[in-house]
């Protein structure tokens, strides 16, 4: 009945092949128009959902104090000394030129630092470096010493060894870019900075210039992914896939049709995604490779049967009808489970991962549709040559089947033991999301940032907002003392590289106001004096600077900025706790906010795992139900849980052994791979069942039959899947490369489980059921693992 409908459908496709081809082309063209809505975002905040508590805390802090997007020019003189007239002259030139940076509001360097000192009753505020060419050796020494003893400069804009310096450009990037111009703001700024950096090196060949800062990071997200797309996708589409297809089908027409089919699916998925308002992001950029990988599997199944039938003497039409009859349901089933698996990524707390899942889900859906419409129709109008012999490799599987059946009594317990051993390493995995490490070392931003943290300052920071709750409350001596105590303690913490605190400025002003007497480098003891110092300081700030980067508008809160060494997420969370503990123990009367962009990343791993878990569970339940329904067996449906879940568990165990750092991309792998690995199980179990039910074979012979019929197909599709996901590991984007590595591992393990563990399990289960004699203790033991 069902078969009849599929046959009628297949005949219809063949009769109307030109129409089907035409409609396919029209539909792809229609979807491609979605590219006109193509959009991108260069902002790390896309990784956070709008209600993410750490994002809200950080945005709240940015509203209260001024926002700080920046470009940092890191400058290293080859002669190792910043304080030479030439270098200072270039620095001064760069400082001046950098004001031309689009959307810049402030440029800070050691040359334009507003050096304040007292001369009797006179308070002099001037640029730290003036007319570098006229400076004597002593002057240079003196200026250098001032710079490295100034808390606002040292370990921020000048290294303690005077070997590296920086020019910081603060930019005001639109919060919620709407127009094309606003969206490109980050790129325009970055390009300006790059050109300026080149000019500096041309002007003064003694200098090396590197670029880091928030803007450079934000711009690196789209740049790195576009680079990936332009290098990795061609490898996959024009080398791996054709070679693999050729190996499987040995037919030029077959290779061409499957490449076209996948191209359509990829373009269509992206077009639809843009129609739905999607935008380009790092993770989404690897979807073409995944769609390609998944689409190949559909094409392979149809082509292999089609060519097999032709080899047996069928006409093209007959062969295609038979191929669709045999493959329609399995392909539909595996597509559905794959789609469910990828859709489960929507439960994640990381919006770009939703996009990743949704694009692939659309692509897999399209690949299914085009494999049963466009692919057969096109094959009907293309010349198909068939070689008489089947590839030899098809017979290797028979031997493997025999071996597994013979060794099943050893395989089952040893596999179970091995699994327990590997799974025991899962707790070794440690959540870690360091945004600098999202980029591989080949990305200039990563290399420059690593250099910067080694030689000058950290890119990671944490802001601590200490609130009095009273307008002008920050001038209270008790409060200032608490902030100062905290700042001094924080300075001693091994994770902390630099502390920016208003209390340093207070102390310096107190000293300045007492004729630079070092005795007076301490906090003012009266509230009104402190307030008046603040007013004095406020009146002396240069253009583009105000107190709001450290003090809120009504002067009720102060923000202390800690610049950190490169910390893992866990270390950062520990630091966060320590900050709260310090205030609880020493100044519990003040309310506290702790936030920063890397604090957001530190929390995202844990949040994401929790949210992804629910998605994975839903996918698991749905997929298991589909399996039970498709196999018409509750028992086998339950049994299939083992080969479906064990691979991910083993992969995470291996990861725990070998790598142990888990970033936000990995938490979705379980749900995602579930939809893929289940395909192997479906194919193997359905062939096994057919042998048992239709051919009345014994469990052993049914296993043998399954190996013969789908063993090779599963092996080769696994190879292409592993190859596809392995190509993702070449990504310059760690999130993609880790996801690719973990998925490749999971899929490879899944095949091993299907071949070495599933058959012995099946035989064990079915023999027992058949003979109702043996105990099931052994099985219970192995399933419990």
């Amino acid at each position, binding site marked *: 009945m069902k078969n009849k409908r599929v046959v009628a459908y297949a005949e219809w496709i063949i009769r109307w092949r030109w129409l089907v081809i035409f409609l396919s082309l029209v539909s792809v063209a229609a979807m491609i128009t979605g590219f006109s809505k193509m959009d991108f975002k260069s902002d790390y905040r896309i990784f956070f959902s709008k209600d993410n508590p750490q994002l809200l805390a950080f945005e709240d802090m940015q509203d209260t104090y001024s926002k700080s997007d920046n470009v940092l020019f890191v400058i290293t003189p080859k002669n190792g000394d910043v304080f030479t007239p030439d270098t200072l002259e270039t620095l001064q030139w760069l400082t001046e030129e950098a004001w*031309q940076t689009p959307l810049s*509001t402030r440029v800070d360097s050691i040359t334009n630092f507003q050096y304040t000192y007292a001369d009797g*009753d006179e*308070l002099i505020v*001037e640029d730290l470096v003036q007319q570098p060419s006229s400076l004597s050796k002593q002057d240079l020494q003196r200026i250098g010493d001032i710079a490295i003893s100034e808390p606002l400069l040292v370990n921020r804009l000048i290294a303690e060894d005077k070997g590296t310096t920086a020019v910081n450009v603060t930019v*005001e990037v639109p919060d919620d870019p709407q127009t094309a111009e606003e969206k490109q703001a980050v790129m325009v700024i970055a390009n300006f900075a790059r050109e300026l950096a080149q000019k500096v090196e041309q002007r003064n060949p003694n200098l090396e210039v590197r670029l880091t800062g928030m803007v450079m990071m934000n711009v690196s997200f789209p740049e790195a992914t576009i680079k990936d797309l332009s290098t990795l996708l061609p490898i996959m589409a024009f080398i791996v896939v054709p070679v693999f297809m050729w190996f499987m089908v040995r037919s030029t027409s077959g290779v061409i049709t499957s490449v076209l089919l996948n191209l359509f699916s990829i373009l269509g998925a992206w077009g639809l995604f843009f129609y739905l308002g999607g935008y380009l992001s790092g993770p989404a950029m690897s979807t073409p490779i995944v769609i390609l990988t998944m689409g190949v599997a559909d094409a392979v199944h149809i082509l292999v049967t089609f060519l097999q039938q032709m080899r047996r003497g069928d006409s093209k039409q007959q062969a295609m009808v038979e191929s669709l009859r045999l493959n329609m349901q399995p392909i539909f089933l595996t597509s559905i489970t794959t789609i469910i698996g990828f859709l489960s990524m929507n439960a994640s707390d990381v919006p770009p991962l939703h996009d990743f899942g949704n694009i692939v889900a659309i692509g897999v859906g399209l690949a299914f549709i085009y494999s049963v419409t466009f692919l057969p129709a096109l094959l009907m109008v293309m010349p198909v040559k068939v070689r008489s012999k089947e590839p030899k490799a098809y017979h290797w599987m028979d031997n493997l089947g025999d071996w597994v059946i013979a060794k099943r009594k050893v395989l089952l317990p040893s596999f179970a033991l091995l699994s327990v051993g590997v799974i025991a390493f899962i707790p070794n995995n440690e959540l870690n999301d360091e945004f600098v490490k999202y980029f591989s070392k080949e990305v200039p931003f990563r290399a420059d940032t690593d250099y910067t943290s080694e030689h000058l300052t950290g890119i990671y920071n944490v802001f601590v907002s200490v609130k009095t709750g009273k307008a002008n409350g920050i001038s209270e001596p008790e409060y200032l003392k608490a902030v100062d105590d905290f700042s001094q303690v924080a300075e001693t913490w091994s994770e902390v590289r630099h502390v920016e605190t208003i209390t340093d400025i207070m102390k310096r002003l107190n000293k300045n106001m007492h004729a630079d007497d070092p005795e007076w480098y301490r906090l003012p003891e009266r509230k009104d004096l402190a307030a008046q110092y603040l*007013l004095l300081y406020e009146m002396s700030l240069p*253009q583009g600077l105000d107190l709001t980067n450290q003090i809120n508008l009504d002067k009720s809160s102060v923000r202390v900025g800690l610049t950190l060494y490169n910390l893992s997420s866990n270390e950062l969370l520990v630091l966060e706790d320590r900050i709260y503990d310090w205030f609880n123990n020493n100044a519990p009367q003040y309310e506290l906010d702790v936030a920063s962009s890397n604090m957001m990343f530190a929390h995202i791993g844990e949040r994401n795992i929790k949210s992804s878990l629910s998605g994975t569970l839903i996918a698991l339940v749905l997929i298991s139900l589909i399996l039970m329904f498709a196999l018409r067996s509750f028992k086998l449906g339950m049994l299939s849980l083992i080969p479906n879940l064990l691979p991910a568990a083993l992969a995470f165990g291996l990861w725990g052994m070998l790598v142990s750092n888990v970033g936000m991309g990995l938490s979705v792998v379980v749900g995602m791979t579930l939809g893929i690995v289940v395909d192997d199980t479906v194919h193997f179990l359905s062939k096994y069942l057919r042998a048992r039910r239709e051919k009345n074979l014994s469990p052993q012979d049914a296993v043998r039959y399954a190996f013969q019929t789908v063993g090779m197909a599963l092996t080769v599709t696994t190879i292409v899947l592993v190859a596809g996901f392995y190509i993702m590991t070449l990504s310059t984007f760690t999130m993609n490369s880790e996801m690719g590595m973990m998925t490749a591992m999971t899929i490879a393990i899944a095949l091993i489980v299907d071949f070495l563990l599933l058959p012995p399990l099946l035989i064990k289960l079915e023999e027992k059921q058949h003979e109702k004699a043996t105990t099931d203790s052994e099985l219970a033991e192995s399933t419990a693992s």
Partner: protein
Amino acid sequence: MKKLLLTLSLLSLLPLNSLAETAEEKGLAIAKEAEQRNTGWNNSKAKMVMKLISKSGDTSSRQIRVQSLEVENDGDKSLTIFDEPKDVEGTAFLSFSHAQRPDEQWLYLPALKRVKRISSSNKSGPFMGSEFSFEDLSSFELEKYDYKYLHDDEVDGKPVYVVESYPTYEHSGYTRLVNYIDQKEYRILKTEYYDRKNALLKTLVNSEYKLYLDDYWRAHKMEMQNHQKGKATILTWSDYEFQTGVDERDFSKNALKRIR
């Protein structure tokens, strides 16, 4: 002779529209006229409330009093006394502004009971954390800028000259200002400030002008919007008094301590 007189009188009726005038000359002429009309007030006193508005809409207010002394052929002298917040009450700031040299500044901190001279070439920094910089608030002097008349326009229905000014002080924070000067009274109704990269930084709108001593217009509301940072400052002036009997001696370092 008669003809010449006629021509002259016609010219005086249309002082700014003579035929051979360049845009620069016309700009300068407008600026001269504006300065001319604001000369002779001698000294003044007023109260001011400064309201700071953050990007997210939070506000904070300060109250100050300002005394000004007109100085011929140089920038005016001004004395600013802080009344609120309470912690800075009595703090006084004396400034002698100059067109092309650094201003001279003294600050008296009552908690320290000391006057400090502040030497800085910087005029582009913010005044009291507001969106007004020192150079925005110091008196208008002809030689502070070079000028160029752009075109006529209207602001709130009033015909205005649009004149571009280019700061002559080397440490100015601006490349140029665009002033909208009303044609009848030569009051600046609006100013746009362009930063060092020639991008629009701020817009100042002056309103609620009142006439004093029959000659001198003073805006009672000055709203400065910073377009790049999304912040704003509103100055509200009140209790203007003119010719209050103060002189040079009241604008000296020694007078600062006596201020209450």
